[in-house]
């Protein structure tokens, strides 16, 4: 029994079919509880007023935007090294979700920035590197959709993902060098005693869990769709041959 068994599409379909409703339901519960808790049952911040509540969308989506790319990097590596088709399809399925997460983070950030910093957009390192990440996602998706042959597309996009990751990290540090920012540093980290005041922190954790589960559910759903599309294509091809 190893993880690699699920590289078999039949086994993957069986397992993901069983998990999918649970993750979807759990994500819905977490998001509903977390967002309602965050929006209506936390006090206003004494300086930021009620605008602080956008944190419940901004932080989880920003977190996911980066981690989705990381997941694509891992699945691309698995495709390059072990050539499991499910892995390549999972990377393909994850990219549009990542783009939407990046967009949510950018837009909620702009909405938050307007009352707080008095501007919708500044060329701050964090904002800029997110914009660059957005461009990387766009290029990745465009390359997938431009190539007809599935295996070629999987190969090319996974190499692009590897090279892109290196350059994304480079850009991250390059923009730090290029401009000083308004955005605060990392507020959440695992090794800190206290991150954000507890009243805000607890609903935020629920929201983050909700976003992670939402991503897993969407990713499973989209990967299943891709596998089914691939099967349909194969069946059609067989039909034509006969």
């Amino acid at each position, binding site marked *: 029994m190893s993880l690699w068994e699920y590289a078999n599409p039949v086994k993957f379909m069986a397992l993901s079919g069983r998990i999918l409703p649970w993750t979807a339901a759990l994500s819905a519960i977490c998001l509903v509880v977390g967002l309602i808790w965050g929006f209506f049952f936390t006090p206003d911040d004494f300086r930021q007023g009620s605008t602080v509540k956008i944190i419940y969308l901004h932080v989880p989506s920003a977190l996911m935007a980066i981690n989705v790319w990381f997941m694509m990097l891992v699945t691309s590596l698995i495709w390059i090294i072990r050539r499991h088709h499910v892995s390549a399809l999972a990377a393909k399925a994850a990219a549009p979700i990542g783009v939407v997460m990046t967009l949510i983070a950018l837009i909620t950030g702009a909405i938050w920035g307007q009352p707080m910093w008095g501007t919708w957009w500044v060329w701050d390192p964090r904002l800029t590197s997110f914009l660059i990440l957005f461009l990387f996602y766009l290029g990745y998706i*465009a390359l997938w959709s431009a190539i007809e042959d599935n295996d070629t597309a999987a190969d*090319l996009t996974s190499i692009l993902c590897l090279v892109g990751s290196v350059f994304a990290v480079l850009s991250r540090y390059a923009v730090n060098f290029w401009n000083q920012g308004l955005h605060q540093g990392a507020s959440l980290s695992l090794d800190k005693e206290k991150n954000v005041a507890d009243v805000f922190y607890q609903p935020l954790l629920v929201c983050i869990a909700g976003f992670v589960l939402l991503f897993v559910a969407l990713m499973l759903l989209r990967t299943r769709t891709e596998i089914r599309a691939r099967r349909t294509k194969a069946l059609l091809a067989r039909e034509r041959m006969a």
Partner: protein
Amino acid sequence: MKALLIRDLRLAMRAGGGFGLGLAFFLIVTVLVPFSVGPDSALLSTIAAGILWLGALLACLLSLDRILALDWEDGTLDLLACAPLPMEGTVSIKALAHWLTTGLPLILAAPLFALLLSLPSAGYIPLILSLLLGTPALSVIGTFGAALTVGIKRGGLLLSLLVLPLYVPTLIFGSEVARRGADGLSYSTPLIMLAGITLGTIALLPFASAAVLRVNIR
């Protein structure tokens, strides 16, 4: 290897080879900038370094699809794949030929165009230095992009979408050198970073380009 380089250079020099096209484009960009931002020379001299870098980058981008597309169409790439030269060598030579035909003329012309944009006199040496160190990275990264999109019909727009984000670090450090130089500040830190990026891409990216090209030829 040498034969391939000479062949590529000759092809580029011939009529219709696109030699000088990048240079003309660079000139047009430089000439158009005062029209769009106004002829005020104080303003021009503050943005000159950035404009020149951006112009050089766009001129480089313009000629990228010529690196591999023609060889792909007439089957030369298939022959090169069978040749004793490893694919990594082929793409490195292609990148070098691209740099010699596009990057080097840009560097030589840059001081002249800097004059048009009234770059402060302290800025010339850092500008040339940064272009000299930065444009090889542009060629190498561009070859990677060209290898990715070589099998796609009308992949030009896709090529720019893929390559431009990869150009970000080079552009940042390159124009930082030129800008600091123009302001009379010390520019050794960004120059070292720029050199690091260029050396890193020259050392590593040909492997990625070659892998991508092998997939496309398969």
